[in-house]
Each structure stands twice: as C-alpha cells, then as structure tokens.
C-alpha cells in the first residue's frame, strides 16, 4: 500500500530539511507533545510514590538529584516552554488569526500565511525554551 501510493511515510513527515522553520516547528511540536505525554505518565507514577510514605517518596525523588536526573528535568523544562509557546501560536493560527488576508497573488507568490508574525512566534518559543533551560541548569547544577 505504502509502496504503491509512493507515500512519503514517517521519513517524509519527519524530514525537516525542505520546508523552512514552520516545518521544523511542526516536528518539534510533535516531539515535545509526545515527550510531555511520556513525562506526564512518568509523573503520575512518580507522585504515586507518596503512598509508600516519606521514605519511599524521598527514595524515588533521589533519582532527580543525579546528573542524569537534572539533564532529564532540563529537557522537560525546554519541552514544556516550547510546547506552550508554540501551542499558543498554533491555536491562534488554527482559528485563522494572524494568517494574513486574501489578496491577488503576485510573483514570486510569497505565501501570506507563512508570515513574520508566525516566524517570530516560533523563534521566540525556541529562545524562551533555551533561556528556561539555562535557568533550570543554573538552579540545578549551580551551588
């Protein structure tokens, strides 16, 4: 089926090299969404350790005090911030907000929906995520 249809498949969906920053944001949104879902499930499991009393709780939380635990949490911070920032941009776009307005197209046909407002939204989500990750690192790895 896939072969007959010559579908791009997962590879075609993921390939971020061809269609600019908007396609990269699409990929990051999917990855961070899935990452957060994974974290959410792990988080429910983690907090359920309270049922094992103070000792069990402290025991489990010790995992987050290691270097690997810190790196994991820094990634979660980054995913959270990017997903939220870009999510707000996408929700507005999905409602038809900030996607330009119809006009007679002129060569070279730059699409109005791929405009600077959305590009700024994407880049600032990435920058905010990076800043939040650096702050997280400073808190966790700092003395």
């Amino acid at each position, binding site marked *: 089926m896939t072969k007959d249809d010559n579908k*791009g498949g997962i590879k075609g969906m993921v390939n971020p090299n061809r269609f*600019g920053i908007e396609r990269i944001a699409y990929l990051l949104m999917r990855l961070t969404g899935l990452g957060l879902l994974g974290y959410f499930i792990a988080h429910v499991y983690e907090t359920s350790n309270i049922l094992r009393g103070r000792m069990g709780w402290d025991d489990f939380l010790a995992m987050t005090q290691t270097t690997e635990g810190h790196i994991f949490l820094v990634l979660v911070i980054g995913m959270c911030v990017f997903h939220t920032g870009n999510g707000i941009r996408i929700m507005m776009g999905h409602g038809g907000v900030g996607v*330009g307005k119809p006009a007679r197209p002129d060569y070279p*046909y730059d699409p*109005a929906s791929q405009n600077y407002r959305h590009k700024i939204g994407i880049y600032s989500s990435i920058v905010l995520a990076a800043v939040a990750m650096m702050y997280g690192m400073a808190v966790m790895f700092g003395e």
Partner: protein
Amino acid sequence: MAQVSSIEDENAPNLLSTSKSVLLRISRFNPESDDSSKFMEFTVSYEKWTTVLEAILDVKKHHDHSVAVRYSCRQATCGSCGMLINGKPRLACFTKISELDSNVVTVEPMNNFPVIRDLAVKFERLFETHQKIKPYLINENSELESDEREFLQSPKEVEQYIQFANCIKCGLCNSACPTMSTDSSFVGPQALAQAYRYVADSRDKGKDTRLDIIDESHGIWRCHFAGSCSQVCPKGVDPAMGIQFLRGYLLGFRS
C-alpha cells in the same frame, strides 16, 4: 552593415551563450515490471533560462525516448508536470536549472501519489477529493432566465476568493503535506483550499454543506498548520491560509 545570418553563422559558437552543464538524475520505475526505482544519469547542457522540463525533454530527444513524463502547457498553467526536483515538489516547467544552484539535478515522481511510470503519477485521488468538496457555486438561482442579470460582485468581493481560484490542481501541496505522507484518507490541502475558495465567494450559498463535508476525522482536523503546502504552491494559492480560515468557522472564531 546589415546582419545576415547564414547556416554557418548559426553553427558557430555563440558568444552570448553561457551554456554550462549539469548532471540530470532521472528516477526510472515501472510498477508493472520493476521491484524498485533506479536512477539514470545524463549530462545535459543548459542556459540561464533552461527549465528542468526542457532538460528532461532534451534527454528524451537525444538519449532515451522511453523516459515517462507528463506535461502540456510548459507555462505553469495545466498542472501536469509536478515532480520532486532536488527533493522538493515543484513544477518542472516553472523551475529553471540555474535557480537550483547545484551541479546535480535529481528528478523523482511526486510523493503521496501512485506512480504510473518514471515521473508520471496518478491524479485520480486528487480529482476525487477535489470533487468531494463540491467545487462549483451552490446557489439555487444560478440558472439564469433570459431577462435576469448575472451575479455582480465588487472588486472587494472578488479579492476574497480569487487567489484560491488560481489553483491548477498540480498536486504539489498534497505532495509536500506531512499529513498526506502518512494518512491515505486525508482530504488534503488542495481540496481544502478549494472548499475555502467557494465558501469565500459571495455568490455561493454552500458554506454549511462544505463545512459538513470537511468536518470529519480525516478531514480538516488532520491539518497541523505546518505550512509546507503554501511554500510549494506555484500559483500563490496559500492553501494553509484557506484551511485555517475554514477551521476558524468550525471553531467559532469566524462567522
């Protein structure tokens, strides 16, 4: 002195010519006899203005007539010659080799369309989804009696849909779409943009009918606003814009 051109003159090296050469790699695949596609390579010379389609036709004329390619207008109007050129969906007749900025030009059939042979792909599904959204004016008064006037529109009303009416059904947008590459049932950016083209037309009364058609699980909700459709569209249709406007209606952002 008058310039008289003779046969000899025409064959002499042309000083104005900037002819360079490029390696053209053409994907060859016949689903009836081949297990997988393979590339054939040709060195072709080109001028600043030579299009990828012209280079392919050059190969057909001088090297291998069996290369399958579909084209008609050669001027970005018929929508026949879409293919992957260096990995991106483009019209072969609307893409100059010089603008690709590469010594190698690789042409493959468009993704997300079944291959007929080599570079030619099947458009059945594209036309089917296009028809599905009812690509015509829905208005019970559209049959005019002789003494009635036609539907007048102001330039402003025309501007609401004219860009979407530019669609030549080339399928580049469906080929670039990340949802199309994994979901065989998705209605696709081409059809969705056409749904908006008629919804935005002041003469049309079919808005609710069309919103109903696209409001299904493999309909408009599978669009994630990645925008690749708009980036490859050779006619400035901007399907992503139309799709978000349609969703705006469905979500209640617009009325």
